[in-house]
């Protein structure tokens, strides 16, 4: 534990090969043992230097980042943190990398002089988490080309219950796994806070939509909470739910970060508790830190259901554990069983929750006006 975490930086930009080690130098428990300018060199250096974590640029000459990643996963199983750029292709390829088993990703550092501390914290925590997870729980998603059958028409139905999901590191794969098991006519409405930088969530939602029967889209303000639809909160905005006369919607805000997070699961959970009371379900899945733990307390207090992903199925058992430790979690469920659990809880015949019923015990916000 006293030995610093050994990191290898693979990037074709000379600047990044200088900058990333510099960022990491601010933490004594991390040591950059080497840098490599392309995938081929990177693989060589992994064999040579035995790093515990690799940061990987995906756009490189020669052996591409994705191919490098595949090789790393196949031969070394070293956790890889993808350093990813802000572009449409960047987002797409990054998500592909996560699907291939990359531990997590960070956005390429931007405007370093102004935002150094923030960038450093993010990168350092992710590297540490990656070093601890020791690679055993990261598995590439099975590459089945199965396209989910979509229901032919878009549901306009109000949902039975509102499921709010908070998820972070390891999230993209876990979420895809869970959502792909839900049917297209899933009766609940799902809102997801996935910690992910701006610019990636749109592509993330598209990819999920492609591979799942349930409909997935990146949330826009005033999107309706519909049965059988998942709304993913865009990066660097907060998402809340709100009940309006004609239907229930999500609202996006640019409020300040909560415990360093935006989007924050705490914000979402709290609004679910306030607006939907016992019709709310809060789910905390794999991820670092404790975002969502407090919010879960509100959901539970308002009579909603609270579910945490089990430790053995988490890449990082941080957020679920934080909520469990606080005593806010009603059920602990493994990733395999999550979809079934949600279906059971959202099923319309289950007890008092009826569609279009506008009840709810939580304190509703007064004056539901226009958004």
């Amino acid at each position: 534990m006293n030995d610093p975490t050994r990191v290898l930086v693979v990037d074709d930009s000379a600047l990044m090969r200088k900058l990333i080690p510099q960022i990491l130098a601010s933490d004594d428990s991390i040591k950059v043992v080497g840098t490599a300018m392309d995938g081929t060199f990177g693989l060589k250096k992994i064999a040579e230097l035995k790093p515990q974590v690799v940061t990987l640029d995906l756009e490189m000459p020669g052996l591409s980042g994705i191919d490098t990643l595949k090789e790393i996963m196949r031969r070394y199983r070293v956790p890889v943190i993808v350093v990813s750029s802000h572009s449409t292709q960047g987002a797409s390829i990054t998500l592909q990398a996560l699907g291939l088993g990359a531990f997590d990703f960070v956005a390429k550092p931007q405007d370093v002089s102004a935002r150094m501390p923030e960038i450093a914290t993010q990168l350092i925590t992710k590297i540490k988490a990656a070093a601890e997870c020791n690679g055993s729980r990261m598995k590439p998603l099975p590459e089945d080309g199965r396209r989910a059958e979509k229901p032919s028409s878009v549901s306009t139905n109000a949902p039975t219950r509102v499921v709010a999901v908070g998820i972070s590191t390891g999230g993209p794969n876990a979420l895809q796994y869970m959502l792909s098991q839900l049917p297209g006519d899933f009766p609940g409405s799902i809102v997801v806070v996935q910690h992910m930088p701006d610019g990636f969530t749109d592509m993330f939602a598209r990819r999920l939509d492609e591979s799942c029967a349930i409909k997935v889209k990146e949330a826009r303000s005033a999107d309706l909470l519909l049965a059988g639809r998942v709304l993913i909160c865009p990066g660097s905005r907060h998402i809340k739910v709100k009940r309006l006369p004609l239907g229930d919607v999500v609202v996006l805000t640019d409020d300040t970060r909560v415990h360093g997070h935006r989007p924050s699961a705490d914000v979402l959970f709290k609004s679910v508790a306030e607006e939907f009371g016992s019709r709310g379900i809060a789910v905390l899945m794999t991820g670092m830190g404790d975002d969502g733990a407090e919010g879960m307390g509100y959901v539970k207090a308002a009579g909603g259901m609270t579910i945490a992903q089990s430790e053995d199925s988490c890449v990082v058992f941080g957020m679920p554990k934080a909520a469990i430790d606080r005593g806010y979690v009603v059920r602990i469920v493994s990733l395999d069983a999550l979809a079934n659990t949600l279906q059971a809880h959202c099923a319309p015949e289950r007890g008092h929750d009826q569609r279009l019923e506008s009840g709810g015990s939580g304190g509703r916000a007064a004056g539901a006006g226009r958004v």
Partner: protein
Amino acid sequence: MSTGRDERMAELREIFFESAQELLQALNDEALKLEKEPGDAEIVRTIRRIVHTLKGDAAACGYRELSELAHDMEDVLALQTASAHTSLPQVAFTAADVFGAILTAYRRRVKVPSTEPLRKMIHAMAEYAGNVPAPKKKLAGNKTSRSKTPATRDSAGNRREESRVPARARLAAWNEYEKLAIQKALRQGKKLYHVLADIDLDCGMPIAGRQLVQVALSAIGEILAIRPEAGASQAERLVEFAVASDQTAEQIAARCQVPTVISKVTVGLIADATGAKDPNFAIPHPIATFTSESAAKLEHSPASQPLSESEDDQQPTTPSHMASLADNILRVDAERIDNVLNLVGELIIGKSMLQQTLNDFAKRFPKDHMRGKFADAMALQGRVLNDLQRSVMKIRMVPVEQLFRRFPRLIRDVGRQCGKQVELVISGQHTDLDKSILDAIAEPITHLIRNAVSHGIESAEERQRAGKSPNGTIRLQAYHQANQVVVEVRDDGQGINAERVKTRAVEQGMITAEAAAQLSESEILDLIFQPGLSTAEQITEVSGRGVGMDVVQSVLRRLKGTVEVETNPGRGTAFRLKLPLTLAIIKALLFRVEHRLYAIALSSVAEIARTIESEIHQVDNREILQLRNQVLPMVRLGRLPVGADHGSHKIFVLVITSGDKKFGLIVDQLEGEQELVIKALDDHAISTDLVSGASIMGDGRVVMILNLSAVVEHFSRSRFKSSGVLGSGMLLSHEERSPLGPIDRGAQA
């Protein structure tokens, strides 16, 4: 904000500038390749990757304009259609230029220049791409087409996009709740109106204006949507409302009249329960956005397109030249190496001091047994010092390729300007040269190449008439020769017409007609390096060698190098720049003139001859010496000896080769040879260019290092100018040498 961090940032920026320069070079290279192989998807991918890296690096350093521009460019390049776009090489060239200009602006901390040309090109490419997969677009309407063009999806792009979209089209983007509200209102039989209020921003209460309209509209109907949305920080001139009401458009418009605050209100019927539009108030954007299923579906259909693009990304890209660089390369500020080099220089001075002391010691204690030990230690130190010096010098050496890589683009551009097809053949690009020398010759070589293309190479027709291939060829070559590196620029053009040069020089009064008559061909060619001549336009046209040749000369002189020209009428011209391997340390021959100590590079001394004054003959205003079977022109640095016995005065003659010329330097006394560390002299310290630097000897004496090419040039020029005066006494001070004063000033140029 610790200083440590600032320093780190400064360092990062330096790295950024340097690697950005490399990226731009690579961009130029790839663009040239693409021009040869249009549509090669692999090259396009490489270009995109280069732009991508540039974008990331710029963003990291907080250079927003550059990163955003690169971002847009990258996005366009990712489009399927990009590689098919015929103007792509041109776009890449423009990008390299515009990025380069931005970089320069950043470096100098001045305003970033206009990026409009590139933006236009990028936009055109995006449009082009948007037009190809046309069928969906019509149905999808404004909103969908936007999300389909990645170029416009980033935040910056979006902003620009929105400003182009006509104001009233903004309402097309109903959110889901608003759609719901609209559907409900229509079901209830209400009509849906679009109200555009133009608020007079000078009225002093623009935000209140919005509220006034809002209140007025609420009184007659239900406001379903407002754009811009509430909470906008800035007052907006145009505010749009979607209003469900059962009143007529005229009634609504009348309601919204608020004199002095609202300057204009436009009301249009978007839809009524039957879905029909009021023909008088037709609004261009379609009501289809909420009445038909198609819009909702299409919103998601583009997903498949970016995905397939991402699959392309997986394919390995060609390794570029950057991959060939080893990973263990350190980027070091040249200044730091110079510091080390300076210290090595001091060490060498220290070594000669020690040697001197040792010699004194040996003289005083010839029998002392310590002498041998001292000598051994000195020898070892000398060897190590030599190695050290060589190693440090090596650090400064870079392959000339770094410079040569710029020229394909230059030739392409100049060739286009002149309407000529010119090929560049490069060889010897791995020859190493001191970095500072390489930097210094960039301009002269650029100039030579530019001239070669624009003037040296003839037009295609002319070439064909002369029986040559219509395409001109320029050979750029670097190689070692003795202790020098030669960089040669050779064209296969028309050559220089020596006669015309001569005529011109006489016309311009640079030389007298009779002096001109005596000039050898190579001496005539040397005239093109004269500043006066080079500006003569006619000469430029005729001979093709014009503006700025004197710059070439002066740079070379500063570098202690020489430039030679060889021309072959009808067959071409070659310029050879002969450069020292390095600037910093030379092996020198030391001698005295008028009791002062001077040095010249030993490499330029072919031979040392002893003779007496009477052997020197005066012929036609110049002194010559017959050495064996050769007649050597003499350069007398000191003054002519006076007195009766001057004929028997013993002198040394250093036979110098400078370029292709040979001549003798008359010196009084030889002092031996030594390694000298050249220290630059600043212009204030010395007012002549005959001396190119100075050095300190082991015993603390200062020695001046002669600039041979300047000496030669002086010498030959003084002959044209002042017949009857011997070219002697160059190194004398002003008082000593007053009759020859003007010569020096001429050389300062």
